[in-house]
């Protein structure tokens, strides 16, 4: 997998799917429309400032709440290349893998990395490098079962290959 590299947007604990993509926009399932409102209720400037390749870093339980796949879809369509967190809520974790948004758990990195840092994530090794601080961290690499899904760029292609 290609490494992710970008500038960090930093958030705290329990970033829920209602602030990632508020339900008032769920009458659409178009990724571009969803991306236009990504993170709106926690950071109204996010959409204005995010650049392709940028990285979201948050602490505990990122993506908690609703099962809406619109949440990782909006993050991916906004151009984010990776989300790093101490922990992810489980439905968000599955959804991200299934739609091909790389996410990685690493408590120390999630706590240390600050907004504006330049960060690189190597998905093959799970190593996260904070180029601004000159530090690196060992994140949790994907288990083999999920690597197969990611190698296929999502669950749909994975199932198509198995048929």
């Amino acid at each position, binding site marked *: 997998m290609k490494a992710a590299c970008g500038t960090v947007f930093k958030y705290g604990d329990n970033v829920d799917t209602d602030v990632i993509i508020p339900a008032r926009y769920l009458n659409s399932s178009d990724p571009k429309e969803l991306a236009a409102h990504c993170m709106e209720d926690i950071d109204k400037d996010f959409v204005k400032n995010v650049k392709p390749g940028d990285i979201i870093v948050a602490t505990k339980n990122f993506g908690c709440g609703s099962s809406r796949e619109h949440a990782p879809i909006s993050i991916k369509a906004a151009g984010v290349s990776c989300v790093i967190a101490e922990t992810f809520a489980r439905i968000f974790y599955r959804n991200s893998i299934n739609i091909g948004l790389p996410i990685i758990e690493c408590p120390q990195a999630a706590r240390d990395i600050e907004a504006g840092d330049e960060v690189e994530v190597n998905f093959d090794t799970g190593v996260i490098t904070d180029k601004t601080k000159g530090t690196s961290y060992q994140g949790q690499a994907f288990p083999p079962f999920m690597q197969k899904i990611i190698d296929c760029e999502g*669950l749909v292609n994975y199932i198509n290959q198995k048929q």
Partner: protein
Amino acid sequence: MGMTMTQKILAAHAGLESVSAGQLIEADLDLVLGNDITSPVAIHEIEKMKVDGVFHKDKIALVMDHFVPNKDIKSAEHCKCVREFACKNEITNFFDVGQMGIEHALLPEQGLTVAGDVIIGADSHTCTYGALGAFSTGVGSTDMAAGMATGKAWFKVPSALKFVLTGKPAPYISGKDIILHIIGMIGVDGALYKSMEFTGDGIQYLNMDDRFTIANMAIEAGGKNGIFPVDAVTEAYLKEHSKRDYKIYEADEDAEYDEVYTIDLSTLKSTVSFPHLPENTRTIDEVGDVAIDQVVIGSCTNGHISDLRIAAEIMKGKKVAKNVRCIIIPATQQIYLEAMEEGLLKTFIQCGAVVSTPTCGPCLGGYMGVLAEGERCVSTTNRNFVGRMGHVDSEVYLASPAVAAASAIAGKIAGPAEVQEVK
């Protein structure tokens, strides 16, 4: 090593003698669920798959409940997409306006979920059916699509937390108070990736509606599922509602749990979750003076007939406080009808509340009760995140139907005892 109740159900559906926590398995599904928000995304995905239709037309349930009757053109287009898919694939259990109810109240009522099932749904509150002794969990739309296509899903076998419920709850202490107490105790990620297995002699005092409420909110503690043992109360419900065979699984005596919590239900008080997380709980004697603008009684968590009966008992002969809007939403058509026949709707309307057709609408700030800037709502729903019910600066206080009804009368957060003195 013994297995938990959840692990036993998963092992049986994966064709394995035993499983252990952390193991990745592929399990056969008894039911795949979606709603009008999540299904259109799933339908888009399944159309990309090289599959010929769905795995089983009777084992898929599509429920139009979030934004129906449609609130705008876009939500109407979503429902149209699902309606056409259901028609093309001859989906038996497609529930449109007129038959629909809030999915997690509707499916058990229709007998589509029974003990021993493995169920996935593209809605986080799919964990509700654990009340019936099933393994059920929320997933996203792509998992739903894969489930509809193949009848299978992969799972990481969860470890478990055990909650031993003892004693008899006091009057007006319901399933909602119990689960809010638990979330307050362990936090919104206290059960992350784990099963919440409920047991103990206190369960006999909980009716099915209480158990549905408790299992429903397992997700608010981060849980993968919540599950209850099957007892006489469950079996009576299953026999009344379903023609399907069910299977009873029990945890092994030597099953391992990450933690065991014992909760004496007789000591619990009415509990309210303050903004903006379900874990911010206070008992009713600690809430202070919180004036409110709106009350919502309904949702997959608390729109059951027993919830409406409790609310009506408290509201009968009283009036909703000036400057408070009270919105009551029976969860299904059947509950609506029962509430009408029992005279509950008359009580609500005479009290100054409005009664709506079944919908999830206000719970997620969709429609039918969206909050303005600075407004406060006491709600029997399940989430009080920032902006959940409307404006980013509005506030949601989660509570039981008893507290919500009393608060509507008092015009501030109040317990049932307070309004009984108000007269």
